[in-house]
């Protein structure tokens, strides 16, 4: 069963429209949601959690429509938002008391061990935490009620590289169980590249693509050449380009360009930038 199935999702705001979004996140997988600021990542996540109202379309989580029984569905979802919204006066111990009465499957020993693993103090108020510590506490809460789906909105931002690696590993570990899935938005594309199975590119409220990461990276390549050389290529072969004083860097479809062309592998970050930005 798919963990998440979004069909024709539309949400309109003045000056922004999330337009006809279609996404499927299979069970056992991690999907990375990439997009510039204001692309619609947080709007998508809020729509999934029924925090805002959709204009049209459907969202199914583990086969259940999120418009019906979202409370029960949320028992199985762990969420970390870009701002962990805990009241500043609460300590990690008090948070445990609250969450124990919030989640049916709350696992106090797991929470305690995660706090220890992430070196979080138990009795310091949340407002004395650094941003990184706040995010870590958010992650600890999200993982401690045995969710089946993790939804992470910029959950690794603010973490130092060592802790980020540790947290990313925790997410990866989470999907070893094939009944689990993760939807993760991040500006740190390297994190997504490291652990994601699927990648969805959002740009100005539209889904540019949603594909398996490995297939995506195999499909595209970077070609460094002159403008004259580029003009000889079929327009269908070029998905994006960047013109610099030293030449052109083009994102090309491997299957269309001839084998003799000097192409090199593309990273997700380059892929996304070149797709959304025709020229810099």
């Amino acid at each position, binding site marked *: 069963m798919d963990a998440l199935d979004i069909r024709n999702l539309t949400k309109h705001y003045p000056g922004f429209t999330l337009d006809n979004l279609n996404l499927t996140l299979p069970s056992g997988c991690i999907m990375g949601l990439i997009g510039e600021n204001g692309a619609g990542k947080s709007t998508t996540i*809020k729509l999934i*959690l*029924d*925090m*805002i*109202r959709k204009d049209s379309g459907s969202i199914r989580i583990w086969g259940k429509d999120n418009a019906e029984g979202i*409370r*029960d569905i*949320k*028992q199985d*979802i762990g*969420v970390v*938002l870009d*701002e*962990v*919204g*805990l*009241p*500043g*006066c*609460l300590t990690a111990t*008090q948070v445990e*008391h*609250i*969450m*124990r*009465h*919030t*989640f049916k499957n709350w696992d106090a020993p797991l929470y305690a061990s995660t706090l220890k693993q992430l070196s979080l103090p138990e009795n310091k108020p949340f*407002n004395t935490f650094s941003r990184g510590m706040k995010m870590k506490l958010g992650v600890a809460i999200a993982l401690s009620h045995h969710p089946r789906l993790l*939804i992470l909105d910029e959950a690794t931002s603010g973490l130092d590289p060592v802790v980020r690696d540790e947290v990313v590993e925790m997410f990866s570990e989470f999907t070893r169980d094939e009944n689990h899935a993760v939807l993760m938005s991040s500006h740190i594309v390297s994190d997504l590249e490291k652990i994601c199975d699927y990648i969805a590119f959002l740009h100005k409220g539209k889904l540019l693509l949603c594909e398996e990461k490995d297939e995506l990276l195999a499909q595209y390549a970077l070609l460094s050449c002159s403008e004259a050389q580029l003009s000889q290529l079929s327009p269908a072969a070029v998905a994006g380009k960047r013109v610099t004083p030293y030449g052109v860097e083009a994102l090309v479809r491997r299957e269309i360009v001839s084998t003799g062309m000097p192409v090199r592998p593309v990273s997700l970050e380059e892929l996304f930038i070149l797709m959304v930005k025709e020229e810099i």
Partner: protein
Amino acid sequence: MKGLLLKDFYMSMRYCRSVLIIVAVFFLLSLSPDGNLFFMLYPLILAGAIPMSLIAYEERDNWTTYSGTLPYSRAQLVCTKYLMGLICGVLTCCLSMVGIALRTLPDGQIAQVFAQGMMLLALSLVSPAVTLPFIFKWGPEKGRILFYVVLVGVSGLSGAVASIGQIPETLTVSLAAGAAALGVMALVFALSYRLSVLFYRKREL
């Protein structure tokens, strides 16, 4: 919902300590020979504002958004604040009743203590009943303005009473009047709750 109430309890203990101190001080002042109705009413108004203060702190800390990710319905999130208003009102009212009893018994009647207690409880629910729907519709900033309007209204009323004569030392109400006031206020409180749920369901978090 127990988790939400626990959270509000922790927050009240941390952020509303000054209210608790004022309530205690006013309780003691109401026992003094110079004590009057003001010393009983003011703590009730302050206690009634605790749910509003909690919502303001929650907005500041982004809890409002975070709570949308937790397995609580909008009605439960609203209900917690009404329960907090009720709990604060009942506790403050109980304290006031103890004060009334200490001042009036054994000469007075126990029925009068209960009658006044019911009237005070009804008064304590005015502030949350009036302000919470506005807060759930437009947020705590605009709700705060409305609270001050209520506060000025009550103060103005006290001033008007004082200009006629001295502020009475205590309320004199019949048991029936107290029960009627509480009944009407319970109805208003319930309607206010329904309205808040309606507003909050439409609000985007």
